[in-house]
């Protein structure tokens, strides 16, 4: 389009005119693209000047360094001892050596090219015209007519029955297209409400051994899991529980504070709370003995252990559910039932 525009008023341009230099052709080409080269001059007025030679040497040096670094990268990649070995050894430098050699190679390509472009290429300032705004009015009218005529040819306005049929018939197809995603849907009725704990399930350590009262010293806490197959794996990610051995005074306070729902859950000075934070489900595991506070490291919710694990700071709203425990005839801790309320983060249907 621009070609015809310029052709109209400009005198005939003959690319084979011997008087024209190559740059004249370049300038004419740019002009036809709506670009005016208003300033163009070589970077160095005197070719082969000291300054020019200096820049050329620098660019050459850059590419020389690239070659060296790339070669070093290839050699290091193949020959450097790379397997992980404990202790301090050369292998530890494999990754740094690769990064350094590759990084230097790439950096110096960049520095070389940019120096070339900035210091050796001719200076220029070009001005390009913009053609902002909408298409020309004629074009718009012609396109609009074409579009309207497409609709007209279909005759959908004149045939209301078709309009209805298309709408009614195709709408379900749109929905049908996303139906396969239904394969993702799972019923969720009860999973969120229960855990692996139930009456008679013993408590176990992470290594699978059962838990006795003497395993936890006064003021201490351990993480316990339901003693069932896979009870300490992520298959039962809702079941990890914190077993806390309170000191006498704290235990008494916890006992007297116990809410009706938590009555009888405590065994002597031992009590167990769900480890899964009621805020976002992270394990709340930082226990401060002196204040009996439990802190979740993800969002800093804090729970008061001696008062039904009531949240006392941070974004958590609900208490940590307490697991009712006792000690069976063999001297092992055992749960007397599942948690009385759903553990973990809140959800819409949570009663």
């Amino acid at each position, binding site marked *: 389009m621009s070609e015809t525009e310029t052709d109209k008023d400009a005198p005939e341009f003959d690319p084979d005119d011997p008087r024209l230099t190559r740059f004249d052709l370049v300038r004419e080409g740019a002009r036809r693209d709506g670009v005016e080269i208003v300033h163009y001059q070589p970077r160095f007025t005197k070719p082969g000047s000291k300054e020019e030679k200096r820049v050329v040497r620098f660019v050459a040096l850059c590419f020389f360094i690239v070659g060296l670094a790339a070669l070093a990268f290839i050699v290091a990649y193949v020959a450097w001892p790379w397997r992980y070995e404990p202790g301090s050894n050369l292998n530890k430098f494999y990754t740094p050596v690769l990064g350094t050699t590759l990084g230097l190679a790439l950096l110096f390509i960049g520095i070389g090219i940019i120096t070339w472009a900035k210091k050796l290429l001719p200076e220029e300032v070009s001005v390009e015209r913009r053609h902002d705004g909408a298409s020309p009015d004629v074009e718009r009218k012609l396109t609009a007519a074409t579009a309207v005529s497409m609709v007209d040819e279909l005759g959908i306005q004149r045939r209301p029955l078709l309009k209805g049929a298309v709408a009614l018939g195709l709408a379900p197809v749109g929905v049908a297209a996303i139906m396969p995603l239904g394969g993702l849907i799972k019923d969720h009725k009860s999973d969120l409400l229960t855990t692996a704990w139930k009456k008679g399930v013993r408590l176990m350590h992470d290594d699978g051994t059962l838990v006795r009262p003497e395993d936890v010293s006064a003021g201490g806490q351990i993480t316990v899991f339901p003693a069932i197959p896979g009870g300490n794996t992520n298959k039962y*990610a809702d079941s990890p529980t914190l077993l806390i051995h309170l000191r006498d005074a704290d235990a008494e306070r916890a006992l007297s504070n116990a809410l009706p729902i938590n009555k009888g859950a405590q065994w002597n000075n031992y009590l167990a709370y769900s480890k899964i934070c009621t805020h976002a489900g992270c394990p709340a595991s930082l226990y401060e003995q002196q204040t009996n506070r439990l802190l979740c490291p993800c969002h800093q919710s804090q729970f008061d252990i001696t008062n039904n694990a009531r949240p006392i700071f941070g974004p958590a709203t609900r208490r940590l559910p307490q697991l009712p425990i006792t000690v069976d005839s063999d001297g092992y801790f055992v749960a007397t039932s599942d948690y009385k309320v759903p553990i973990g983060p809140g*959800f819409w249907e949570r009663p």
Partner: protein
Amino acid sequence: MKRPKFDPKQAPGAVADWADQRLAGASPLRKLFNKVFPDHWSFMLGEIALYSFIILLLTGTFLAFFFTPSSAEVVYNGSYVPLRGISMSQAYASALNISFDVRGGLVLRQIHHWSALLFMAAIVVHMLRTFFTGAFRRPRELNWMVGFLLFWLGFLEGFAGYSLPDDALSGTGLRIADAIMLSIPVIGTWVSFAIFGGEFPGGDRIFSLLYIGHVFLIPGIILALIALHLALLVKQKHTQWPGPGRTEHNVVGHRMFPGFAAKGGGFFMIVFGVLALFGGLIQINPIWLFGPYKAAVVSSASQPDWYVMFLDGSTRLMPPWEIRIHLFNHGYTVPPIFWPTVVLPGILVGLGLLYPFLEQRFMRDRAHHNLLQRPRDVPTRTGLGAMAVTFFVVLTLSGGNDVIADKFDISLNAMTWAGRIGILILPPLAYYLAHRIALGLQQHDREVLAHGVETGIIKRLPNGAFVEVHQPLAAPDEHGHTELPYRGWVVPKKMNRIGAIGPAVKGFFVAVEKPEEPREVEAEEQREELTSGRR
């Protein structure tokens, strides 16, 4: 038939002729060669984002060769001794293998992670540049929206990648993501169960989704949007700063080839080189120190990548306000985590996407704009931007408030309260300050145009008063004022900028050259001649 002799000098011409006979590409190709790019350092910020995305594709492809997205339990038996014999998911084990048992795997993993952080950072800084200079105004609203969506897609892509290795930290992130899904009223549990394939952590479902999402779906969408972003840019051409010779109807700068393209290509190599150095020398996400994800395990100072930290911060600052609803003899819950992690991002997406249209409405400016504005010239927008940045910074700092509390020995609870109070009062304060500073800078520019540049020379008048001598930029009238209009462009503020003083002497310890003699102040028409973007 006689076979023509092959002449290597003719080859490029012959190939060009062959192609043009079939494609008629001569004039569109020349149009591309001749496209003019304006020059300003801030225009390279978007380039950094583009280049780091290319590096992400390259390194990510390598990682995909060796990664297994599966939650199946295996016993680790690789080179890293401390974790030998521990049972873990295949995903985590293969991430460990990439780090220790694939030649050069660790350096590529680390380049990949650093590129991701740089990608997001470059997007954010590029977005700020576009915002504060008004480059999003008509006709570029559409490109603003595309760029804005690219930020949130990058956010999702980054989170998916962060979650894939299934180490203790990323598993905790997924756990929180599950709590966020669960918190959505009515459909929350359905969403969570659909994505995890059951109660958290479900089975393999989450890894299939994360993997396909991370290596195929989201990168595909990002790639398509980047193509659209660049196509719109080519179609609408660059914005440019106001200056001599630059108008709303032209673009002043360099042609694309060879100068601009060479600079761009070189810059890509520099970005790649810096990322390779980072990947080799600066450890990132050492998953082998975190161990496999277990529901009962977490460490203190568990932070997400920086671009997610503001949402972590908003979650930490949210007060424990749970809403209970009783309907049909059943209680329903809206957990507090719903507001900072679902509603807040929703508002942020909506506000950001629609900002160009909101501004058009409130500023009643619907004209075409190709010249950029300096932040000082639009104090309201600058104030709003400062407000948004402050909001983001307070939330990001709150996302690491436990680390700050620990390192600076401050009460953790005090940090949370500081964040809660800060998020309410600091953004308006930032608005006020930025607004006033913008007006002040503008005022100073106008003063220089009216009175001239400060010279530092104090003159004593016959009546005993001291006045500073100003160097006027144009011939002053009888009141000592000049009639230069304010054009929203840089005003010289130092003597050497207008040529009254020679440039600074080069050399650190000893001068490497003789100082230049002070030049005469250039005549008006000379100064108005076209210059490139270098100022």
